[in-house]
């Protein structure tokens, strides 16, 4: 999958395999083969040891919600037609919440919160990140309610 299907703006990067992972249903972090540092978002290069070789490792499990918001006044790319005149329109546009979760190993993952209303979200609640391929072929990361 072209990396731009995730990034919207960027096509060329050494970690373009991240988008292939999303397409396969895998959320991937990078692991430096020299020092073992795991990074998300993935980096081809390691700022800890300056190593330049990495391998893909999956991001597993459930995280804790660190913070969240819902962006009503959207940038160009995300502006729904109805609220083109936002912020001054009276249209009842409801954006999906966006959050950051912290995984058990300390990695932090940003994603769209799926299937939960903004007013039911609390900092500290358990959410799991997972890849999501959208109907238009783009791919992204979503945060969903943890099982159990």
């Amino acid at each position: 999958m072209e990396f731009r299907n995730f990034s919207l703006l960027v096509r060329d990067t050494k970690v373009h395999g991240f988008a292939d992972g999303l397409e396969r249903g895998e959320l991937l972090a990078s692991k430096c083969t020299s020092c073992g540092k795991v990074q998300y978002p993935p980096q081809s290069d390691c700022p800890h040891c300056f190593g330049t070789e990495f391998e893909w490792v999956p991001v597993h499990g459930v995280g804790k919600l660190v913070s969240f918001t819902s962006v009503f006044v959207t940038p160009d790319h995300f502006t729904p037609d109805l609220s083109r005149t936002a912020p001054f329109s009276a249209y009842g546009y409801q954006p999906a919440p966006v959050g950051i979760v912290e995984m058990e190993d300390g990695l932090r993952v940003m994603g769209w919160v799926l299937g939960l209303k903004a007013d039911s979200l609390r900092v500290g609640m358990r959410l799991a990140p997972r890849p999501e391929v959208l109907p238009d072929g783009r791919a992204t990361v979503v945060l969903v309610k943890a099982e159990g």
Partner: protein
Amino acid sequence: MGNVAVVGVGQSHFGIRSDASLRELAFEAVKACLEDAHVPLADVQSMVVSVASDELSCALQPSAQVVDYIGFHPRPSFRVEGACASGSMAVRTGWMNIASGLADLVLVVGAEKMTEAPTARATEVLGRAGDFLWEYPFGMTFPGYYALIAQAHMAKYGTTEAQLAAVAVKNHHYGALNPYAHMRKEITLEKAMNSFVVAAPLKLYDCCLISDGAAAILLASEKLAKRISKKPIWIRGLGLGTGSLSLAHREDLTTLGATVEAARQAYEMAGVGPKDIDVAVVHDCFTIAEIVAYEDLGFCPKGEGGRLVEDRETYIGGTIPVNVDGGLKSKGHPIGTTGVSMAVEITKQLRGEADEGRQVPKAEVGLSHNVGGNGQHAVVHVFSQDKE
């Protein structure tokens, strides 16, 4: 290292300046600054220009527009950029220019023309100051980033939406007294609390304005400063810190590490602490940003920033008056201009020349705090009436 002083200040009116282009706004500020200093442009040796956005100014090297329009060539000039912190970086660069001995008299100009772009476009351009590769794909905007900071601060310290609104009420109170401010009107707590949501929990009145405007200061070496000005204002401490591009990379969302580092450097260089500051301008691009700045600059313990403004301690007469020029919130935030305008305000306060109703009595030491993006850069300067 030589001492450097501000010997002239000027700025344009901020606002939706549909009457003027980028270069014309800059001209207004430069003219006011040189008249204030009683120095002809011919005496100025070098120029530092801060224009934050190529995209909003429709061109590469927007500084060339400014340099050409005021007739500065062929003398040295360059542009400095760090998103919303560009202006303070330009002040720092001007200082370096003089401290290095390259020049004795340097003009620092900040200018930005933002309102010609539609709101959605400007929102996109500003939002991309954050991590446009990994976080922009989630529809992140500049208010969105600060909303994440606000939500985390509220969860950790119990900061309330009313405390956020109290920042807006204060800054609009003082902005109403500033003839150069974009939105010269008082607002009530109710009005702020009931305004529409931009990025939850931030509402319209939690957000700074999108403004056009320019500001300029003239910096002089010690040799020239006393000859030019009866009241030179000395730049005593400079600090510049950096922070992660990606917000998700921050271990603690409730603090800007870049501010903490910049403040540490500036206080140490000036030999002062937060208690010595008589008046401050801080980067209130959003109300939460002002509250976090109180804490990161040491004006109150961590987590108590909301209470500080609620208790009116940042009004004139309180322990530390903050943004009594209206701040970015009411004065306006032409992004590349803001840092230079902050230096204009602190200079006026320390000269005792601020407008009626918003002059801090006996202000001798002032501080400016300017943030780029959502904390990728922070710049802190300490100004003083005294050279040492």
